[in-house]
């Protein structure tokens, strides 16, 4: 299995599917970082740089979409979703414009650029918007599927992507289903860990560590945060009776909240949310930051094992 950043897979997928002439790609002076430049190299006439003006970019995207285009608009997650939030709300989501907001540099693994550039609230704010689909892939194969799904979906889609090169979870020919989670590992019924994005890889490491301690975990990749696979969330909770959520995002409003909403309504279950605990990130290498904020495989395993003890 190889290693690549989901932003790289995004650029490649855009170029791969770019033969579809309805596709127009916008960027806000970050095309080399967001990798939309890969599409630009292949289809220069359908790529527009809108400069450092994210709000304008999102509303321009909606205008293009009104003429029948499938528009991808990219920037870093902080600027795409926070700076341009209201344009995404009123110009894109409200009229159900066919715009795909594909944001890279999400989470703390942005690394050295520090807290100003580490988006830890984008899932939360995108999830609350009516008509918005929210996808958060963990690796290259899943990212390709998300881009393909976005093109096939007529309406707003948010795709959350990362800067860091990460291990592949899936083989290139892995079959995914829109709106469905993936059971990435199933050691048993002691605990179900629902993870998204790069936390899938870290949770898989945690599951191995837990297994060595005699704790049998399942790891479920929730790449479709909205809609969420309610059936899978409930059935895993039923089997394990204890649920952990793991995300490179605030524990408020993101995957943890989405899972809690489903379980509170359908099958009340003890949940432990792992993520950024109502705090901003900081500068540092991605590995150092994961350790500092308890989001590496070892820290996750430790936390889950400690929680399980308190349950018994």
């Amino acid at each position, binding site marked *: 299995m190889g290693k690549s950043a989901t932003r790289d897979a995004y650029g490649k997928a855009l170029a791969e599917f770019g033969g579809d002439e309805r596709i*127009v790609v916008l960027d806000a002076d970050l095309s080399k970082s967001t990798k939309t430049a890969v599409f630009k190299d292949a289809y220069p006439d359908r790529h527009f740089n809108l400069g450092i*003006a994210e*709000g*304008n970019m999102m*509303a321009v*995207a909606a205008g*293009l979409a009104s003429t*029948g*285009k499938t528009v991808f608009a990219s920037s870093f997650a902080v600027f795409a979703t926070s700076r341009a939030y209201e344009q995404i709300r009123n110009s894109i989501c409200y009229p159900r414009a066919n715009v795909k907001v594909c944001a890279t540099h999400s989470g703390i693994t942005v690394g050295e650029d520090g807290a100003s550039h580490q988006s830890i609230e984008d899932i939360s704010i995108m999830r609350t918007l009516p008509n918005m689909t929210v996808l958060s892939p963990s690796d290259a194969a899943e990212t390709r599927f998300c881009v393909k799904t976005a093109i096939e979906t007529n309406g707003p889609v948010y795709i959350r992507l990362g800067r860091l090169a990460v291990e592949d979870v899936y083989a290139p020919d892995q079959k995914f289903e829109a709106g469905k989670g993936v059971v990435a590992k199933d050691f048993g019924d002691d605990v179900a860990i629902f993870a998204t994005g790069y936390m899938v890889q870290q949770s898989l490491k945690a599951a191995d560590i837990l297994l060595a301690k005699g704790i049998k975990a399942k790891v479920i990749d929730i790449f479709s945060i909205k809609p969420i696979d309610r059936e899978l969330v409930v059935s895993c909770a039923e089997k394990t009776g204890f649920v952990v959520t793991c995300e490179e995002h605030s524990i408020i409003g993101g995957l943890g909240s989405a899972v809690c909403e489903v379980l509170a309504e359908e099958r009340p279950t003890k949940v432990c949310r792992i993520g950024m605990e109502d705090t901003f990130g900081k500068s540092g290498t991605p590995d150092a930051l994961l350790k500092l904020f308890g989001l590496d495989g070892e820290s996750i395993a430790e936390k889950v094992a400690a929680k399980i003890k308190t349950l018994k």
Partner: protein
Amino acid sequence: MIESEVLRLKKIAARIRKDIIVSVSCAKCGHPGGSLSIADLITALYFREMNVSPEKKDDPGRDRFVLSKGHCAPALYGALAVKGFFPEEDLKTLRRVDSYLEGHPSARTVPGVDISTGSLGQGISNAVGIAIAGKLVDKAAYRVYTILGDGECEEGEVWEAAMCAAHYKLDNLCAIVDVNGLQIDGATEEVMNPNPIGDKFKAFGWSVIEISGHDFEEIDRAFAEARKTAGCPTAIIAKTVKGKGVSFMENKASWHGVAPNTEQTEQALKEIEEAAAELEAAGKEA
């Protein structure tokens, strides 16, 4: 433009002004002041300048209009109803829970509306997006028009969009700024002075034409010049009177977002009708 054509447009504008008063009055809320100030501009667009009609509402080659100052929906809805996109009678349902006539233009529900607006500053960006699609992606001949308020020009996004339109040389785009000099909290010059708006657009690389927004001949000449202008977008800075056509609403910021009561409605309709009758008489004499 021949006199009979000016008369035709003035009569349509009077009908749209009546529609504005009736719809806002029925809704018991809404924005009559700015709607009346753009009534002549929107009449010129829908009944002379733009290639749009209910029969061609999905034609990819049609001209596009974005009401960036979306709160003036009553003027747009009036124009669309008179044009035949939906029954004029329906204007009385404006803002009602069972109506498709949303308080601000809604592309999903109102026939003839391509872009949902209401949040100031975004409409001009939407128009830039359509103009990029037309000129640079589809190489289509259609033109894109948008009306902004002068208060709206306080929004930073307007200038992001202005920069972008000039950068991409969008000569298929024409933005009309309705300069009525008033915003909710008072005179634009006192609240947050956006002037000189024309100079700002010029500095951003636009062709700028300054006119009266109530003079159909000037409006017509400006649109003709915009159509001939190559290599850059055009901004028409139209000086207008907020509340134009209703004596007690004219130049009063307090009529920005308040509906007339029954007596005021009667008075307003009477004034508009009388002015229209005078036009008719003058037209017959001529």
